[in-house]
Structures are given as C-alpha cells and as structure tokens.
C-alpha cells in the first residue's frame, strides 16, 4: 500500500537534502581551516645545506593497511551471471580507489563468495575466517532476508546492492532495528509501484501477471495491482500466475492461459534467463501480436538486453522496461565517466548491479573518510542520512530504514541500430513520490 497520509512533502525532502549538502560543505570548509598544521623541517644536503620548512596536512590513519570487503553474489546455477555483474562493479571501484591512494592510505581488497552456496555460511565465513570489514552485494531477496538478521550478531555493515524485497529495509531495519543493514539499490517500489504509473497511461484495461513464485515476484505483482487500482478504476486483473523460479523454461501454458483470460497487457517480473525466455516465447507464439503492451521491470538488465539484442520484441503500445539503474540516466558527467571507464574495463555497458555495487564501495569510502575510523557505530551514523553523488544520480540514504532514495526511469524498447536497444518515451518520477515511507502502513 502506498502511504500518503504520513508522507512528508517533496519540499521537506529537498530541504533536508539541501541542508545536508550545505552542512557537508560548511563542515568540510570548517574542518579544512581548523586542521592542525604540522610543521617539520627537512634538510636537503647537496653542495650546501639549506633548511626548507614544509607544511604537511595531518592525515588520519586507519588501524590496518587493508580494508577487506566481502562480496556476495550468485555465482553458480542459472543466475550465475548476476554474481559476475556484482563483481565487475566491485572490482572497478576497488581498482579506482586503490589507484587514487586507497581509503585514508589503506588499500581495498575484495573477497568474493557465492551466495547460492548457503548465504548464511558464506557471510559467517567472510566475517569470522576472512575477517572482512564490510559486506556488499546479495542478489536474491530470499538470501537478503536470511543473511540480514545475522548481521546484528556478526556486527558488520552489509550494503545490499541488488535484492529488492521491501521487507529488507522496512522490516529488518525499520521495525527490527538491525542498524548494520543498508541498501543502495531501488527496492520493489520500482518494480511494482512505478510500473503502475507506466501502466496508468497505457490504453490497456485488462492485465495479466506472470511472475516468479517467490518473494520478489509476489510482492511486485501485489504492489502493481494495488497502485494501479488506485490510479485507475477501469482496469481489471484478468489472470494471475506464478511460475517456478529458477527453472521455468516453457512459458507456453502460462501465455496461453493469459490470452485465454483476454489479457491486453502482460506484467512480468521474470528476470535473467526467464525474462529472455518469456520474450522469445511470446514472440514465437504470436502473443506479441495479440496484446498491446508488456511491462517487465527488470527487462533492461544488461544480460537480457545483450542476449536479445536486435531481437528484443516490441509490442504495439510498447515493451516497457527498467532496472535498478540504466546506463544513460541521468546525463551527468560522473555517469558518463563511469560508463566510459566501465566499458574500457569490461567491454560492455554497465549492468545495474555493477553500478550499485560500485557505489556501495564508494559509500564505504565516504563513511570511513568522514569518521576517520572503522568504529561501527560511527560508520553507521555517517551513513545514515548520507548524500552520495553517484553514477545513478544523487542518492540519499534515508536514516529511518537505511534505504537509498534515487530515481530510475522506465522506457520503451527501441531499436536504433546500436550495439544494444535503447529506451525511448522515458517515464520518471521522483523517488520521493513513489517510494513507500516510514512508518510503512
């Protein structure tokens, strides 16, 4: 449900962000002017002795030379490619940070583990055996809900960069007060709620849902139905089906049932190989000729885009897709630079979980640099309410639920002959408008 009554206004939000930025600038300026100058004498002996007096800025140093970051992603099974996408973002950020002198002089190193091989065991080993200082990643919502509660015991910060269930931040952070958890990627508000704003303006009245049968698929469909019903009272949800995931390779009976129910549009949160398979089979079975629109929130994930390429089907009123970041949005220098560096390093456009994991590493860097220590409470305090200028735009870490607020657009698949299809008819909305807000009724 979208809570409107307790929602603070956009003005308050912008005010908060603006005051945060101003405070940051003022604080930094103050810190700079108040820094204790250190004077030391350096004697250089050549043919004669001169005395040079230099001013050297006092540098905070960390108690260790290397900051270890544990990275969790799916690295085996049908979704294995997602572990690679997380890894690529993490590696790029690590290389950049280390090349620029590390974090307060300490180098960053990564320890990468497969969350599909028992996420709880992996997280425990990362902290207890590998002695990592932070954890980032996690692809699956189910895994995020399993590993989340463990973090208060392990007492390390976990920044989720993909798993999308709203329960991670709403329940684990906001209600259960597990302060060690953060998320820099958009939750299912993107997949369910913003998707309904896209559907609102389409000439489609009968929607069918074909969604993966687990947390992510079910909550997204629920949000989509609830939001769209509020936005328009002439829509019907004629068919709702849930497919096994991973492991559904034949969607023909699902599609046949959706057509049988008279669907004019199909909403599906199937992703990765199931997303690709659905598109291909909808095309082969002529479904694309019989329905008006398709909404696939994770349809602009780079694995799907590269796999379908020029064969990415388009429906009469559009195949509407999004991600947790799309590479061309927003059109800022920092984003262009990121995309360029990413393409140089990995020879591909960045996937969303690459960007979110990249940003998570910079978030850790920013927190350590502002506190000058690895003290957990201080780091959590620094991250709460932090404003990050990232490739995906300005992210604000909401203090109550540790969820990053930033906007990610939807768009219509279009083929312009480039390396991958692009998006047109971009639909954006301020995260403040479509996110759910505390106290999450």
């Amino acid at each position, binding site marked *: 449900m979208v809570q409107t009554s307790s929602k603070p206004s956009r003005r308050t939000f912008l005010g908060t962000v603006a005051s945060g930025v101003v405070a940051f600038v003022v604080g930094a300026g103050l810190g700079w002017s108040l820094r204790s100058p250190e004077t030391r004498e350096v004697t250089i002996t050549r043919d004669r002795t001169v005395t040079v007096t230099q001013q050297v800025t006092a540098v905070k140093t960390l108690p260790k030379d290397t900051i270890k970051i544990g990275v969790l992603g799916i690295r085996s099974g*049908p979704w294995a490619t997602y572990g690679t996408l997380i890894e690529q973002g993490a590696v790029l950020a690590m290389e950049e940070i280390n090349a620029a002198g590390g974090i307060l002089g300490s180098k960053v190193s990564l320890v990468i583990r497969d969350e599909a091989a028992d996420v709880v065991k992996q997280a425990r080993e990362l902290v207890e055996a590998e002695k990592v200082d932070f954890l980032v990643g996690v692809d699956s919502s189910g895994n995020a809900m399993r590993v989340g509660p463990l973090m208060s015991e392990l007492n390390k910060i976990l920044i989720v960069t993909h798993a999308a269930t709203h329960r991670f931040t709403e329940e684990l952070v906001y209600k259960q007060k597990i302060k060690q958890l953060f998320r820099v990627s958009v939750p299912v508000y993107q997949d369910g709620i913003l998707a309904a704003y896209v559907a609102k303006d389409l000439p489609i009245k009968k929607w069918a849902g074909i969604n993966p049968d687990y947390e992510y698929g079910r909550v997204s469909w629920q949000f989509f139905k609830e939001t769209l019903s509020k936005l328009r009272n002439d829509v019907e949800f004629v068919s709702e089906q849930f497919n096994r995931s991973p492991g559904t390779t*034949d969607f023909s009976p699902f599609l*046949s049932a959706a057509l049988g129910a008279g669907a004019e549009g199909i909403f599906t949160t199937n992703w990765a190989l199931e997303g690709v398979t659905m598109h291909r089979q909808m095309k082969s079975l002529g479904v694309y000729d019989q329905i008006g629109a398709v909404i696939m929130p994770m349809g602009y994930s780079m694995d799907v885009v590269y796999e379908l390429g020029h064969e990415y089907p388009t429906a009469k009123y559009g195949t509407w897709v999004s991600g947790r970041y799309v590479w061309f949005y927003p059109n800022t220098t920092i984003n262009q630079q990121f995309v360029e560096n990413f393409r140089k390093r990995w020879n591909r456009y960045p996937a969303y979980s690459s960007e979110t994991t990249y940003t998570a590493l910079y978030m850790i860097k920013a927190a350590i640099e502002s506190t000058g220590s690895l003290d957990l409470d201080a780091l959590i305090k620094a991250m709460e309410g932090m404003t990050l200028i990232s490739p995906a735009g300005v992210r604000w870490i909401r203090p109550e639920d540790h969820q990053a607020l930033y906007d990610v657009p939807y768009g219509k698949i279009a083929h312009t002959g480039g390396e991958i299809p692009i998006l047109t008819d971009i639909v954006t909305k301020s995260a403040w408008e479509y996110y759910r807000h505390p106290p999450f009724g």
Partner: protein
Amino acid sequence: MLELLGHQILTGLFRSSYYWLIASGLTLIFGVTRVINFAHAAFFVLGGYIALTVDILTGNFWLSVAAATLAVGMVGTSVERVLVKPLYKVESLYQLLITFAVTLIINDASKLIWGAASRSMKIPAELALPVWIAGRSYPLFFFIIIATAVAVFILLYMVLEKTFWGLKVKSTWRDVTMAQALRINTGRIYTTTFSIGSLLAGFGGALMVAFTPVAPGLGDSLIITAFIIVVIAGLGNLIGAYVSSILIGVAESLFLLYLPEFDILLIFVIMAAVLLVRPWGLFGER
C-alpha cells in the same frame, strides 16, 4: 470455452513432450542398469549448448542436432565406462553420488566454456512457420516436438519389444544373474543402454534449445520434474513414463487456466498420492 480448453491441452501436450524427451532416457537407464542417473538433465542441457554452438558456426540446425546427439552420446558412454561401471556392484547411493559429481563437473565446465550468462536462440525460420489453430498461431516447431516425442516412444517400444536385442535387454532388466548364465554380455547391455539414454538426452536437449534457454546448472531444476514423472510411472517403466509425462504436462497446463495457485504444488501432490496408494508407481510392478 471449448477452444480455450483446446489451446490449453495443446500447450500441455507440448510440455508433456518436452518432459518425455528428458524422462525417456532417464527411465531407460534406470530400468536396465538400476542407476539413478542424476546427470541425465545435465546431459540434456549439454546437448542444448553443443547444438547452439554448432548452429552458430554452421547455420544448420539439423546438423547441430545430429552433432549434439552424437557428442552427448559419447560423453554418456565415457561416463558409464570410466565412472559408473566400477560402481555397479556397490550400493546405489554411490552411483547417485558419482552421477551427481558428473552434474557438477558439467555445470562448471559449461560455465567455463559458454560463460555464466544464459544462452538462447531464435527458432530457425523453417520451424517458426506459423500454424493457425482457432485464432492463435503456433510455430511449426510445437508440432514437430509433439510428433518427435511420439516417434521416440514408438521407436523405443519397438526396439525393446520386437527385436532380439530388446529381448536381451529385458532379460538383463529382469534378472542379471540369469541373463549372465544365458551368456548375455550384460556389461555391454549396460553400456549400450546408458549410451542410448545419453543419446536421447543429447537429442532432446538439442531440439529444445530452439525454444528454451540453456544456462549453467539449469539441469538441476529439470531433473526434479523428470524424476517425479519417472517415480509416478514406476521406475524403469517406459510406457508408464510416457503416459505420466502426458498426465503431468496436460494437468499442469489445465491447472494454470483454472487453478493457477495450485499449479506448482500439483506435481508433488500427484507424486505423494501415488506413493501412498501405489508405492511401486502407477505402471510399475510390485
């Protein structure tokens, strides 16, 4: 209403045929060698990968199906000769473990060779020809798969029931010691059956890759359904496995239309019911 039902039964039959292409080899191998071949669906997916690669290289889908069938047949034969053969005399648990190990090796090898991302292809143009039935179009591929499944069933049935070799297989199936006493080379029967089963997996996987994706570890999801179908039929029962493929495929499809919430559960409920009432399977012998 009737049309709706017809469409749903047709997609159900397609799904049944897909199931049967996996279950046929699995039940054949179990029936004769008593080995629960956990790697069977991994062979199926491997067939898909090989076909996809050959298709990209040559542009000839039928050539790729032939190549994948033979390649997977060879892999299967090697696995039987080298890994499974020494374990025939010990408990079946060890055979399950060794075939599970093969699954892990195939999964990781395919990740190494073809990458972690899933792969898929467009239906070849000649198989994508639309066939119109009651207002909806189906690719010709749909009917080719259904027909192929029937053909595989008839062929296996004829070979086992109407040939002398089939008689030897059935004797081995019934009683290995007696078959050996009759100077039947049971070792060779085992190898041949395992090879035929693997050929079937390669063939099925290669055909289906035109419609379904391949990904590392995808076989792990497919094998569960295939096992359930074989268990419902009665392990090792060929006719039963075909009937139970049709039963499960069509039932799943119809439930999607009328009771979608119950659909994923369905196959497990049927299995539980069969195991309670007839633990030896619907068509199995006590």
